[in-house]
């Protein structure tokens, strides 16, 4: 009932989800070489966000860390990255991308069909104009990411591993 009448642009909301994930995930220490290493949200492939992602994280900090947005065309170019959004077109066959990440501690997110079942970590599912989350816990564990129970409660947990 609360949300009746409220409609926002799809990628504006997804950008805010990405920003929120930073607060619900614990990365292993090696993911942040320095105390002020920024928290980097990366977009692989075509960027569907436009300005929305930059605007969402502008002037935001997670503790002492500022946020940064990076865009990459190929998985091999990715340097420091904590949350990786993979565009729908690339995410439909995620195996090559995920293999390229070699289980680095990067939270992988996409809206592609079957992403969480195929070894990705979080998939945005649009269902009756609302965004649901699917979470592959085996994949997050393999990358040594700890997911807060707050996120676990609202996400749909998908079975099986993505090795």
């Amino acid at each position: 009932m609360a949300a009746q009448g409220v409609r926002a642009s799809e990628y504006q909301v997804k950008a805010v989800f990405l920003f929120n994930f930073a607060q619900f995930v614990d990365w292993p220490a090696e993911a942040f070489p320095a105390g002020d290493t920024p928290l980097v949200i990366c977009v692989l492939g075509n960027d569907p966000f436009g300005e929305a992602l930059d605007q969402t994280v502008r002037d935001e900090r997670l503790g002492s860390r500022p946020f940064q947005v990076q865009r990459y065309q190929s998985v091999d170019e990715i340097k420091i990255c904590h949350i990786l959004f993979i565009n729908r077109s690339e995410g439909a066959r995620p195996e090559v991308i995920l293999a390229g990440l070699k289980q680095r501690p990067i939270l992988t997110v996409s809206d592609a069909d079957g992403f969480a079942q195929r070894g990705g970590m979080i998939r945005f599912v649009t269902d009756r104009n609302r965004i649901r989350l699917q979470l592959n816990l085996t994949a997050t564990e393999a990358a040594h990411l700890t997911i807060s129970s707050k996120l676990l409660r609202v996400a749909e947990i998908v079975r099986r591993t993505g090795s």
Partner: protein
Amino acid sequence: MAKAATFLLLGLGLVSVTNPAFAQQPDSAAQALKHLSIEQLMNLEVMSVSRRPERLAQTASAIQVITQEDIRASGASSLPEALRLASNLQVAQLDSRQWAISARGFNSTTANKLLVLIDGRTVYTPLFSGVFWDVQEVSLADIDRIEVISGPGATLWGANAVNGVINVITKDAKDTPGVALSGGGGTELRGFGTARYGGQVGSAARYRIYATRFARDPSVLPSGLDAVDDWHLGQGGFRADWDASTISHVTLQGDLYDGRIGQPSAGDIAVSGRNVMAKWSRTISETSGLTAQLYYDRTNRDIPGTFGEDLDTYDVDLQHQTRLGARHDLVWGLGYRVINDRITNTPALAFLPAHVARQWFTGFVQDEIALVPDRLHLALGTKIEHNDYTGFEIQPSGRVNWTLSPAATLWAAVSRAVRAPSRVDRELYAPGQPPYFLAGGPGFHSEEELAYELGYRHQRGSFALSVATFYSRYHGLRSLEQVNPPAATPIVIGNGQDGESYGAELTAGYWLTSRWRVRAGYTELRVHIWPNPGSTDTSRGATESQAPDRQLFLHSSIDLPAHLGFDAGLRVIGEIARPGVPAYAELNARLTWQPTAKVDLSIVGQNLLNPRHIEFGAPGATRREIERGVYGLVEWHF
């Protein structure tokens, strides 16, 4: 303070995130959204300018969606082949190029109760209210998805959505950047090649251009002789998408094709055509949007010895949706179409008059009512159409969608649909000069359907299940009436038959592991057609509906180590008792190797179980048989 107030108002749903003020300052929308909890974000309704928000009419209907991944995995090399992936369709291949495709029965080569749209453009010939499948050559790699709805969709969709709608949606140009080349060849699909380039103009406009060409082997006759229906087609086209602003989107697209198909005598069939389309959508407010589209389509077909047709179609559509109060979502639209159809008559058959211009006016309105918000929704609507043959036709429907739990949905619908006359029904004469053996019926009126549907959908994690059941009653189905009974000829086309159909469509999908997905589809269908008192039609529907009682599909897609993928699809199709097509089972399979991220190498086997099999048509020396086929494919993206 202001932030706290915004948060509170958002939480209560009293202020919208994309109201005009926010739309101009997306930055403040981002700021406002950040104050929502994850749960609140998940409860927020989203909309995208480029994608039509999902309507209840779709969720409360027997919809099956064929994804790009499904098409790839299947090894399909044409749109009709891809449509075999929807188990709620009856798909049968007649020869190298002709297909009979329908939903809920009433299948024939001139099936006339299905609406087929490619990006909103109706690919339909007013000649028989059906589709010439041999010229619907969509570049399969550029398809985003195909929505297949069985059952009447007449209220929301265009004319002719009596028993189903096939909605082919191609990718936005922003999803097809760079160069993609593919090509290959084999035994049935002799050779093919496609080149596509996607580019960008400024930051807001993207485009792609493509060209494709193929050659297909002839089918065979029962004697083993070649049916001389080899088929060649070349096509090119473009699509451009422009985000004119954060709230408006413009799409321009077009295609051009030219092809030749062999015939045993009288020379090759020549087909050609072109179309161009403009679409504009605009978000007016958080609860309201406007879409307009305009297209022109031309097709030319010359079948030496049978007939020739030049058809021009002009179409314009407007659609507006808006929310009224807290519980009503209203969508309404207007459409106008005019066709100019010129037939070249032959001694074999004639359409009289040979040249016609016809127009259609349509209007529709539908209200989606949240009886219990997020739980129980009702959609009531009607379409009003005016055509030159029968005047006004009214096609109302009522649909209800009940969300039992986040995983489970129950839906039900009652709809009325009509199949308006086409040129075949009223204007066809055979032979081309009197005395006629067969004549169109000057009094032929619309066929009517009343359909009742009940469905259930379940989706949880890796498992999805859908069941749709239906019962339909038909009045005034097309019949062939003896003019001077008991003399068998001449005959005239009438509305002398009634009928009913019932059945169930089941689909299930499951990810066995992260790398192995299986899907199944099963359809059970009965169609009964009988002559009304006074009718002299004795076919009992055999000419109007040729569909198997049941069909079963099993698909498996597995990702193997070493960048290999293996996909297989089995179909088991029941017999078509009349006119006598035996039951058959066939298997398609595809093995793909991705040596690098940029290259895919595949080998595809089609109809592997039998050297030859029959899918459609009456027994006889000229019934064509479909051969086993194998082809190789190389795809390169950069």
